[in-house]
């Protein structure tokens, strides 16, 4: 690995200043599970590494009924998996985060860092999309909020501009109980997802309210299956309707074939997993 200058600022402002000062020669470090590898393989050779872990504000993981769930930039997947409020109010996220790598990986890798790497197969992405996550970005021009759908812009590409960092991901509070389901296909326990699906459903009086179905590893970015969602929204759920929604979700998927599996398999699995996720969500709401 090429040597570099290491900084561990204690404020977001300091971190942004460092990134501005060093431009494209600086990389941000949180958990390091991806950055370290890229530097070791010399895919990246930054002259400067800015470690965010001593910025206290970024380690916040908190929930309130008003603001929802706030995940700071240096919060690890392990912390999210173990947090009681996540398990209770954002169960799909706890399940999704628990799939990432091994315990060793989850004790270091961060939710935000993983999103900034913008792999189309990012495990927490379908869950975060289905919970309506919003990303807060801070840079030289100040602070802005971007919905997660708009944050991903392509494989490995995000809406981050130069010298900008993500400070938090926020999941709004739900107005009422939600059912959820999360499913993923993988070759081995610690491999990345071949395909994943997450459904989060609200309902009352036997009719589906807000329905969100998000898919991972079946397009250039994690995506919402909005046409599939429309099949169920405002409707009384039935086995036939679930089958139809799942079929439409598979149509909305745009997977590729790669070393891990074929596009055809991914499409098939979108249908299977989405159906299981919807069934899980609806039975949590005692509607199936």
């Amino acid at each position, binding site marked *: 690995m*090429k040597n570099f200058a*290491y900084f561990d600022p204690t404020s977001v402002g300091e971190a942004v200043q460092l990134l501005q000062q060093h431009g494209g020669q600086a990389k941000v470090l949180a958990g*390091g*599970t991806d950055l370290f590898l890229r530097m070791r393989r010399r895919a990246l050779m930054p002259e400067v*590494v800015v470690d965010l872990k001593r910025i206290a504000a970024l380690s916040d993981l908190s929930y309130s009924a008003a603001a929802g769930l706030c995940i700071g930039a240096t919060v690890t997947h392990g912390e999210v998996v173990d947090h009681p409020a996540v398990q209770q109010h954002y169960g799909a996220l706890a399940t999704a985060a628990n799939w990432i790598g091994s315990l060793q990986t989850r004790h270091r890798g961060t939710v935000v860092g993983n999103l900034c790497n913008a792999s189309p197969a990012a495990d927490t992405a379908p869950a975060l999309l289905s919970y309506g996550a919003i990303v807060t970005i801070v840079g030289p021009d100040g602070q802005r909020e971007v919905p997660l759908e708009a944050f991903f812009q392509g494989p490995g590409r995000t809406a981050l501009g130069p010298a900008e960092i993500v400070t938090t991901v926020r999941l709004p509070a739900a107005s009422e109980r939600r059912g959820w389901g999360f499913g993923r296909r993988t070759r081995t326990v610690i491999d990345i997802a071949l395909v994943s699906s997450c459904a989060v459903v609200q309902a009352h009086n036997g009719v589906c309210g807000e329905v969100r179905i998000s898919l991972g590893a079946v397009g250039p970015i994690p995506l919402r299956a909005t046409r599939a969602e429309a099949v169920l929204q405002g409707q009384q759920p039935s086995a036939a309707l679930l089958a139809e929604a799942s079929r439409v979700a598979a149509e909305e998927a745009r997977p590729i074939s790669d070393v891990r599996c074929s596009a055809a398999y991914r499409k098939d699995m979108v249908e299977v997993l989405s159906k299981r996720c919807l069934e899980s969500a609806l039975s949590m709401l005692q509607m199936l």
Partner: protein
Amino acid sequence: MKRLITLTVNGTPYEVAIEPRQSLLQLLREELHLTGTKEGCSEGECGACTVLLDGKTVDSCLIFALEAQGREVTTIEGLAHGDQLHPVQKAFAEYGAVQCGFCTPGMILSAKALLDSNPHPTEAEIRQSIAGNLCRCTGYVKIVEAIQAAARG
């Protein structure tokens, strides 16, 4: 270009001059000569480099030594008290859970971390806790049995 860091390893404070690019694994093995922690894949996939960092299992091959500034590290060398083996180490020996021994330090630390927080794990919980520690020799059966035996006490 070297920086001075201070950290505690197995209860002992150390002051070490290292380069930013050195990993925690390199610091432990090459600077402190604690060679019980092994380098397997250098990719954070095999777990042979597992140590406890502030009590949590981590792959030390993926951590810059600088990130351990002010932290507490536990390696396999920190488990036994003189001649007294840690219960997990004893169980591994008694149950034949060690063949070549290369995965063993990391495996034992993962098992210890599990039992510290979950003293009566199910078999599924044991297998999940060692999912990040690959073994090419044993087929894992004896390892799981050893951890179950250590849990029984």
